[in-house]
């Protein structure tokens, strides 16, 4: 497997430093020694399919899981030794829901502020601010039980920001949300970065979301396989992507390999290949192929193509599979582990 890391953020002050961090769950190595830094004020994204080890990495950085090997510091504090100091520095939105649904929105916030030691005066000032930020002022005295999924997510975001952390962790913050809410949440994230100077570490398996990050690390099977700005990652691919569907994709792929010395990968019934100059190549391709072409299109590369090139797979295909695995795992263990 290719292992390529471009150290782009060198020179800037870092808020997270991770060195060969590793986690084993009895027998299974979920994170196989990852190293990276996150700069202050940076939006850093972990992109990878389900089961890649994103949540495990976040849990270690947040002191919820003890690393099997390697170390990491957050805001200068060691995550294994200085847990409370790390916890004071961070805000967190978990992948799974974590609100008390039998309390009202404002009670959830108040109790959070209390256990984070926010003084009462600040608490009374901050709560309306964060509620307004996520546009829940009108519902603050309603039980969380009555909220929609998107509202709960927004409330969790508000809660994560309440104690003014230096570093915000968002584990799949937009998972299962409608596009409008997703868009909204991204607006907040950018706003926070700019207005509060917050550093953000987030995970996602949505390619288009990863585009919003300053830097993206691609993780697969517990290993980082690339890390750079979205632009640079896409540039690596070079040129454009041709999507092609034919009568016999396997034959067509062989032909392309033989005649043009290009590698075409089949995903979801379509062949995809990366070329330098698509506009001129397309006519040559159609003329050269003996296999009948049903449709053909040209587009700019996305992070999906980067992932495809590095792994030979697509992220989203695995999503369904991954969720299935996750469900089975939960059922077997009969519940959710902390």
């Amino acid at each position, binding site marked *: 497997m290719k292992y390529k890391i471009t150290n782009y953020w060198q020179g800037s002050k870092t808020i997270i430093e991770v060195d060969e961090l590793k986690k084993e769950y009895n027998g299974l190595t979920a994170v196989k020694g990852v190293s990276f830094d996150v700069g202050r004020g940076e939006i850093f994204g972990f992109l990878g399919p389900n089961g890649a080890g994103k949540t495990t990495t976040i849990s270690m950085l947040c002191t919820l899981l003890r690393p099997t090997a390697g170390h990491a510091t957050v805001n200068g504090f060691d995550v294994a030794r200085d847990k409370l*100091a790390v*916890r004071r520095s961070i805000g967190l939105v978990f992948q*799974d829901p974590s*609100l*008390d649904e039998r*309390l009202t929105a404002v009670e959830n916030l108040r109790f959070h502020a209390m256990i984070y030691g926010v003084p009462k005066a600040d608490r009374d000032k901050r709560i309306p601010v964060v509620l307004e930020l996520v546009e829940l002022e009108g519902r603050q005295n309603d039980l969380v039980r009555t909220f929609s999924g998107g509202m709960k997510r927004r409330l969790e975001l508000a*809660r994560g920001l309440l104690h003014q952390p230096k570093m915000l962790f968002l584990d799949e913050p937009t998972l299962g949300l409608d596009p409008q809410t997703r868009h909204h949440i991204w607006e907040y994230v950018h706003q926070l970065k700019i207005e509060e100077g917050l550093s953000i570490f987030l995970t996602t398996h949505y390619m288009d979301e990863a585009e919003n990050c300053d830097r993206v690390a691609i993780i697969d099977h517990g290993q980082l396989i690339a890390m750079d700005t979205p632009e640079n990652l896409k540039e690596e691919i070079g040129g454009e992507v041709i999507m092609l569907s034919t009568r016999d994709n396997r034959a067509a792929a062989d032909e392309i390999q033989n005649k043009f010395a290009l590698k075409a990968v089949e995903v979801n019934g379509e062949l995809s290949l990366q070329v330098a100059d698509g506009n001129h190549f397309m006519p040559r391709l159609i003329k050269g192929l003996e296999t009948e072409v049903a449709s053909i299109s040209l587009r700019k590369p996305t992070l999906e193509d980067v992932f495809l090139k590095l792994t030979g797979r697509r992220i989203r295909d695995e999503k369904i599979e991954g969720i299935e695995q996750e469900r089975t795992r939960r059922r077997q263990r*009969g*519940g959710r582990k902390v």
Partner: protein
Amino acid sequence: MRAALMGIYTLWLRDVTRFLRDRPRIISSAAQPLLWLFVLGLGLSTAFVRGGSPQYLRFIYPGIIAMSVLFTSIFSAISIIWDREFGFLKEVLVAPIPRWSVAIGRALGGSTVAVLQGAIILLFAPVVKVSFSVPQLIFAFIVMFMIAFSMTSFGILVAARMQTHEGFQMIMNFLLLPMFFLSGAMFPTNRGLPIWMNALVHIDPLSYGVDALREILVGMGRFSLFLDLGVIILFGTVMLSVGAYYFEKTE
């Protein structure tokens, strides 16, 4: 230390807030002990005396209070497992407060709720012709709190080890009713029991709680009050320490 105290207070406040909000639960949890007291208690007492023995009702009355406290305590401890399943536990575990303060906060919150629930049964004292002075009442509250605290701590210990509420319920079915029956809440345990049962009565920590409450409210205790209180406090402390230890280990 400040953070730990704030953590304890917050978790306590959360339990109490949730309790006071849930009126139907308060009523339904009060209904069961009252049913035991007035229906089962009255029914059983007619086996000895025609028309029912007031003495028997007085005898089981402290036992029924202990029952109410016991069941509410265990019910509160289950909510840790719900918190785990609904994810809220994670929010608490990642907060900048020591884990042991989480265990203590929950234990205090659960105990407070259990004492309040037990106090509802206290209101029925005149009906069973039990009367007591203010110092007696205060002492009764202290003992109720001790029982509640040790039982909630015991529940928290079990809950900290359990991943699902089914598992918790299974364990509790094995322990809860035997603990209640052997505690002497419903019948005297000081004479005529088979040896094995007598041994279990002495092992059951609730025996001492019921005994203390009975001594204070109606003056029919069998052990010394010092032994009673000593055992409850010791049991509670050990349970909470072990529970807090497991909490510390939770990943």
